């Protein structure tokens, strides 16, 4: 009697169906996985998408008043009408790049705001409104609350006094004690240097041309936000989290010896390993891609690189899940064993949050090229030409880890 032939494709499909059924049977786990996905997306949405890179600095009196008060003295010192007009037209109130100047009429107002006795609000047209929070005044509408924790009170005749080299010119820096020492120190330096410049004293060194001193792409005003940095990290963490669920599925099969039962059917060890690979990789990959899509990480330029990177990452963690799962430990043992692999691999992901390049010892970790490619593609919008070396390095690690996983699981399955 001839038995119907079962194709390998049908066997693998049946195994995948079994995996999906086992995974979906635990509705609580499924619900919680969905919940974590949603929370990660929410987290990526609520984290600030801009970088506050300016120091808010209060000054009194307004810069225009300081200049107006100095006009006569500057004329007496020989300034031409043209020089005065240029000074008048220069929008000094804009401040330097990196400084957000908030101008107060009096030193008392400035001091009260820094002290916290008054609130400073900037209206839509750029005006300044002071509010006494203790008086029950309503908050100004269409206005933004300013956080002025440091300010400089110049004497009204500051410019003319310094320009005419008078002795005893004093400037007061008001500061909240929580302002970091480097900012307090810098503001004092800033005032002193303003004094030197007004007194006509040149810098003691020749500074290079401004264009030539910035190394790398100048991102001033266009910094990478925490949200941008979090996106690749979260996608990576999702890949990593699936190590736990995948290794748990494998452990259960090993512990309960269901794999032995499978192997008395036409299923071969290779079919079993292939199905595990497809299911584990597909599960991690699809969850990671869904998160990346929801947070808008894909662009027409980076989608292919991102997809390949996620695939490599998913395959890497499937390999780890195979190694962990094939040990056939109980839940606690498996959790601890997973941690031993996963914690070192997490380090490059957290390294993304720090400025600058990763330390050499971090760069040799297997997960580094995956996270570096994710960051390159999603944050810096790099493409294949810039990332292929990193991806090749990732592929090499994936091959090593995946083959190790396959061998470990194959040996375990055959030993049962």
């Amino acid at each position, binding site marked *: 009697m001839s038995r119907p032939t079962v194709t390998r494709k049908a066997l693998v499909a049946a195994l995948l169906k079994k995996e999906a059924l086992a995974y979906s049977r635990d509705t609580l*786990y499924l*619900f*919680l996985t969905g*919940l974590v996905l949603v*929370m990660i997306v929410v987290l990526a949405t609520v984290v600030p998408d801009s970088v506050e*890179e*300016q*120091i808010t600095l209060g000054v009194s009196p307004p810069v225009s008043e300081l200049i107006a008060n100095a006009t006569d003295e500057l004329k007496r010192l020989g300034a031409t009408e043209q020089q005065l007009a240029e000074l008048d037209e220069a929008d000094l109130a804009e401040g330097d*790049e*990196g400084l957000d100047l908030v101008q107060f009429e009096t030193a008392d107002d400035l001091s009260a705001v820094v*002290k*916290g006795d008054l609130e400073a609000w900037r209206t839509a047209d750029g005006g300044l409104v002071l509010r006494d929070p203790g008086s029950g005044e309503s908050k100004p509408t269409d206005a933004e609350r300013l956080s002025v924790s440091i300010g400089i009170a110049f004497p009204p005749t500051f410019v003319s006094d*310094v320009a005419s080299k008078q002795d005893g010119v*004093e*400037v007061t*820096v*008001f500061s*909240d*004690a*929580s302002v*970091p020492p*480097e*900012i307090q*120190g*810098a503001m*004092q*330096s800033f*005032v*002193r240097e303003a*004094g*030197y410049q*007004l007194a006509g*004293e*040149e*810098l*003691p*060194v020749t*500074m*290079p041309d401004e264009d030539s*001193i*910035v*190394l*790398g*792409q100048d*991102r*001033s005003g266009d*910094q990478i936000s925490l949200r941008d940095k979090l996106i690749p990290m979260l996608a990576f963490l999702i890949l990593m*989290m699936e190590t736990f669920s995948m290794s*748990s599925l494998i452990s259960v099969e090993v512990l309960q010896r269901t794999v032995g039962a499978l192997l008395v059917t036409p299923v071969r060890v290779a079919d079993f390993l292939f199905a595990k690979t497809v299911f584990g990789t597909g599960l991690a990959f699809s969850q990671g891609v869904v998160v990346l899509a929801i947070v808008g990480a894909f662009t027409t330029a980076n989608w292919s690189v991102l997809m390949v990177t996620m695939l490599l990452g998913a395959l890497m963690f499937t390999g780890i899940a195979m190694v962990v799962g094939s040990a056939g430990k109980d*839940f*606690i*043992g498996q*959790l*601890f*064993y997973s*941690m031993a692999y996963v914690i070192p691999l997490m380090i490059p992901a*957290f390294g993304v*949050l720090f*400025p600058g*390049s990763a330390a050499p010892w971090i760069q040799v970790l297997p997960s580094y090229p995956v996270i570096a490619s994710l960051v390159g593609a999603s944050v810096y919008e790099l493409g294949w030409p810039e990332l292929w070396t990193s991806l090749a390095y990732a592929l090499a690690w994936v091959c090593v880890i995946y083959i190790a996983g396959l061998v470990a699981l194959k040996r375990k399955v055959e030993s049962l």
Partner: protein
Amino acid sequence: MSLSRVLRIAKKDFALGPRSPLFLYTLLLPVVLTLVFQVAFGSLFAPQPRLGIVDQGDSEIAELLVAEEGIDVTLIDNEQELKQQVEANDLDAGMVLTPGIDEKIRTGARPPLDFYISGESYASNRIILTVTAIDTLRVVEGGNAPITVNVENFGEAGLPVSTRLIPVIVFYALVMAGVFTPGSSIVEEKEKGTLMALLVTPVRTSEVLAAKWVFGATLALAMSTVTLALNRALGGNALDLLVVLAIAAAMTAMLGLLVGVFSKNSTVLFGLLKGVGWFLFAPAIFYLFPNWPQWIAKLFPLYWIIDPIWQVGVMGERVTTVAFELAVAVAITIALVPLTLWLARRMQAQMAAG
């Protein structure tokens, strides 16, 4: 309920506990987290501007900048390496001090200064480093500043990030020892059938749970104390802190019992903790961001134990100042008892049904 049976079961858990890798993990976690959070993430939340200096001639400028408060100065061997580090944003800025630069500045020769800024450095850091460097050059130049700068400070300095991270670390110590350890112990006994075996003896379910609670609470009390000691946050009054930690340990251990009796197996336990972990963890984040509306933290159950630990352990307050918070924590703990017992009865019925 027999106290002697409760203590006997608890003794068994203490004797067998160290064999579990989770137990080891619970012991190591506070140390590892203290190290990671305080050393690594402390600098993440409070980054200092980073300046690299190539000092080719023992310049006084380098000495003065190294001594500058709030600036992270690195001395580098050569200009090429400096430029590479600045370009990679390993440094916010860098400068090269050529041989004899101090003397040239003093004589008014205005020597060229090689100064580099990283394209990825924040505008605020550029200003801080540039004006600080120029001010230092003025000091070396030796002239008198044309103005006098007076500083008036208001208020008290904010707490450093390393201190504000303590609730996060204590949270993990409490949850691992108080929630995860007794929870997983119950689940493990269910899975291995030892709980069923226990229950066919004169031991009652409530006694097993009481023993697990003693186990979790003792471990949580010990680990939270160790964590606070590692972070030098033992407050001013040991007895006050002990009261606070005992209530915190009692509450977390009760949560541990709850998740243990609710979870039918390890996967559910892990999934449950993975899902509700955010809910438990939320109040600890508010200490990192004091400008957030703090009332939101009160919506989360662990706020009522984390805040008393913060007030008494970190801020050195007396236990009386957090009496209300502790009363809420005790009320939550007591409210969880009937729920836990009800779930335990359900668990027993499920085990009996096979």
